[in-house]
């Protein structure tokens, strides 16, 4: 009998982030249904539901620990971004009119007085793409580091913390997409550029975060085998 290959990314997500199935019976259940004709959308929907239900259960079991872990991670990310921003300030100066403090998605700092002539008015200049690409690249490295940090949590199960952070991140990015779409309709300057960045971040940033967490998990497992 020739089997249809199941969606690999979804199966990986289920294996890594569903706590109650070390024997893979859940993956087996989904595979069985998939072979009986269910589609990829059905498979993904089930995986996301299983993982999210597991996440809510983890949060329910230790809400204070999860909230504390998330606040810590959000602050660390904000501080790292700020540090990078300070280092790159000479490049930003007079080029970008606005810096979004990515560690704090609800807070957009309108940087005033950073233009060459020192005026405090906001300058809606064009997005400087090389600089933006550099910023995005550094942002992704930071996100990978945050993933590694979350995966080393000892107070809360790392799986719960990584998923909770990921869910928050995706929700914030979706909110940002909605905002920039609205700005695009209102003909705000640079709205399309920011929208493209958000659309890029939506799949890539979670993948980088999970990759960082996965690296840390493998390192921890290798260490425990060595001892």
């Amino acid at each position, binding site marked *: 009998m020739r089997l249809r290959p199941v969606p690999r990314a979804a199966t990986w997500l289920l294996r890594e982030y569903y706590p*109650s199935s070390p024997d893979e019976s859940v*993956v087996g259940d989904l595979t069985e249904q998939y072979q009986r004709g269910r589609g990829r959308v059905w498979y993904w929907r089930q995986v996301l539901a*299983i993982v999210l239900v597991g996440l809510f259960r983890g949060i329910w079991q230790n809400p204070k620990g999860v909230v504390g872990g998330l606040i810590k991670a959000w602050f660390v990310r904000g501080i790292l971004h700020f540090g990078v921003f300070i280092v790159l300030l000479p490049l930003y100066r007079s080029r970008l009119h606005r810096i979004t403090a990515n560690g704090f998605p609800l807070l957009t700092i309108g940087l005033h007085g950073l233009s060459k002539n020192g005026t405090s008015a906001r300058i809606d200049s064009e997005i400087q793409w090389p600089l933006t690409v550099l910023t995005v690249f550094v942002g992704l490295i930071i996100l990978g580091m945050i993933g590694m940090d979350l995966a080393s949590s000892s107070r809360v199960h790392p799986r719960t913390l990584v998923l909770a952070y990921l869910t928050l991140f995706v929700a914030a990015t979706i909110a940002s997409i909605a905002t920039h779409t609205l700005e695009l309709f209102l003909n705000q300057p640079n709205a399309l550029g920011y929208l493209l960045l958000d659309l890029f971040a939506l799949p890539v940033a979670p993948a980088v975060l999970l990759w960082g967490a996965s690296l840390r998990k493998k390192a921890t497992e290798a260490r425990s085998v060595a001892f």
Partner: protein
Amino acid sequence: MAAQPSLSNFELMVMLAILRIGDDAYGVSISDEIEETTGSSVLLGSVYDALSRLGEKGLIVSSLGEATPERGGRAKRHFRATTRGLQVVRETQRTLVKLWKGIPQLKGGEA
């Protein structure tokens, strides 16, 4: 005497589905049974979550079954109700029947 664990509506459905199916009760068959009986779609995630809670309460036990090629060589996890699980289902039934009795709006199946 330890207090009887209570069952949520969905947990009760899962327990009843396990009892109805018998030996072949596993994630997919339980989900199918509930879907067929209630007529609404059920996410497997909610079934696994309920199974996990019922297991923690000691109302069901599980065992690994056979692995089939259709399942990518992975075994089925079968579930069955424990004696305590059966007691809790009976107790829940008694309580619900008591609550049902004497409600004038529900008499004669008119509601």
